């Protein structure tokens, strides 16, 4: 295996992705990711010099809205699925120390 994923990398990616893995899951993830990256490294066989990265398949541009208010008070719909709410707002754990 060419790509060895370290504990630190898995830990770091866990912070980025907000995922908490058990010790066993971490070992599994290290193995899976290393193997996937080895596989993905095949792309390096391809010479892509001078090729523009293609985000969109079609060269569509300038899709706009006009600056006109179309939405009314949708508070009830916005909060309808909230796991916890209070005073018309979403309730979350305290965000400051």
């Amino acid at each position, binding site marked *: 295996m060419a790509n060895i994923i370290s504990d630190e990398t898995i830990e770091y990616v866990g912070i980025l992705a907000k995922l908490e893995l058990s010790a066993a899951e971490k070992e599994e993830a290290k193995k*899976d990711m290393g193997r996937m990256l080895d596989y*993905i490294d095949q792309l*390096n066989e391809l010479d*892509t010099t001078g*090729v*523009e990265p293609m985000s969109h398949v*079609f060269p569509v541009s300038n899709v706009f809205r006009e600056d006109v208010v179309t939405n009314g008070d949708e508070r009830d719909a916005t909060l309808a*699925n909230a796991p916890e709410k209070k005073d018309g707002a979403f309730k979350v754990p305290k965000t400051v120390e």
Partner: protein
Amino acid sequence: MSILDLTAVALGKKIKAGEVTVVEATKAALTQMKTLEPTLNCYVTIDEAGALKRAEEVQKQIDDGTLSGPLAGVPVAIKDNLCTEGLLTTCSSRILYNFKPTYTAEAVKNLEAAGAVILGKTNMDEFAMGSTTETSAYGETKNPWNPEHVPGGSSGGSCAAVAANECFYALGSDTGGSIRQPSSFCGVTGIKPTYGTVSRYGLIAYGSSLDQIGPVAKDVTDCATILETIASYDKKDSTSVDRQDCDFTSALVDDVKGMRIGIPKDYFGAGLNAEVKEAILAAAKVLEEKGAIVEEFDLSLVEYAIPAYYVIASAEASSNLSRFDGVKYGYRTKAYDGLHSMYKKSRSEGFGPEVKRRIMLGSFVLSSGYYDAYYLKALRTKALIKQAFDKAFKNYDVILGPAAPTTAPKLGESLRDPLQMYLGDIYTISVNLAGLPGMTVPCGRDAKGLPIGLQLIGDCFQEKKIIRAGYAYECSRTYEAPMLAKQAADAVRITGAAHITGAEEEGRSDE
């Protein structure tokens, strides 16, 4: 013959003619579900009460002439990653626990406007990540042709429900083959349209640049009719394309004389099952005999589509799925210590292993220091793949090949080795990368009796060519339904309208 054997368009005609009522058709499908769901598990949520109520309303509108389209009154199943207002939408994930959208996806709205009756929401691989419908948090769906086998995925619930006559047609979504591969495994027809043809508004995103919604049905006529109904230019979707050529049913012509069909040699190498190969080449022969010009060619770059796809789709998914955090909707863990603990525990408990795997990979390839090497490299590869198709379509109207290298594997076989499972998407993935339309049409069965699907790929906006080829091929054979579906349907006919009990209104959850 049972109502359930009818195609969507045939049922629509009978309803219009007054031979079948919308309620009868709806009850027939619901009864079929009662019989088969314990075995197959095609649905996450069955909206029995809603469907029956809607059936009566639609019937009235048909009677008074308000609704007159070909799909008016025809009951449909919707993949569970399409938002339906007030109706549980889970993406087969625990993280969307008890989520009831406050709006309906544009494609579903288009169906509703055409008089569709929504039966329920179909099972899928969690967030459409998988090729077997085994990664669902609500249990795997089984293949109606043999319940020991998977239906394919990720739209496995939709394809199995169509094959099992648990609906008359269904909507699926296709990011890397998620309509075409399970259609192949379940012996039904499915289309992945050109990117931008069907609005993605209300489709819960997996890989935004690759996702497209498409129809799953018993035949090409149904698929063309459904696609014509759901295709629309939607100002709410910036990637929606304003097309003036969505009269897809006009291509339902049994004539392929002079049509140039290319068979990519790259699709017929090692890894392709011999029985599948034989069936595909036989189908090509049929088209050739009908006057098409069939030849082999080198498409090239086929092996690079999968690695490029997994970089792009995982990267987009890692970002798309970050909104599931326990704040606004869905699952929130019970015990946590502060904000980040709430995030991590909710997400870790809410997502299954395959989703986590792709989120981790996607976060990694976008992280500082790897973006160029992985993400940009994949986007450059995508550009080259698109160029290869552009070149091919200079010479051919349609590209013909298999939809999958094998028929449906047994349950549990694929998940043991994720990478091996990813390789099964080799013939479908490049179509998504290049934004092309692709269609699967059944073309026989293997020795075990499992269906084989023929894939037809067109150039961008050339759905009509693949519909024409698919229709011409289909005219040479008859639709086969799995024995299980037929037996259940026969039982319905014999016992009359089966007793319908209270629906599971809240749908399912593992709570």
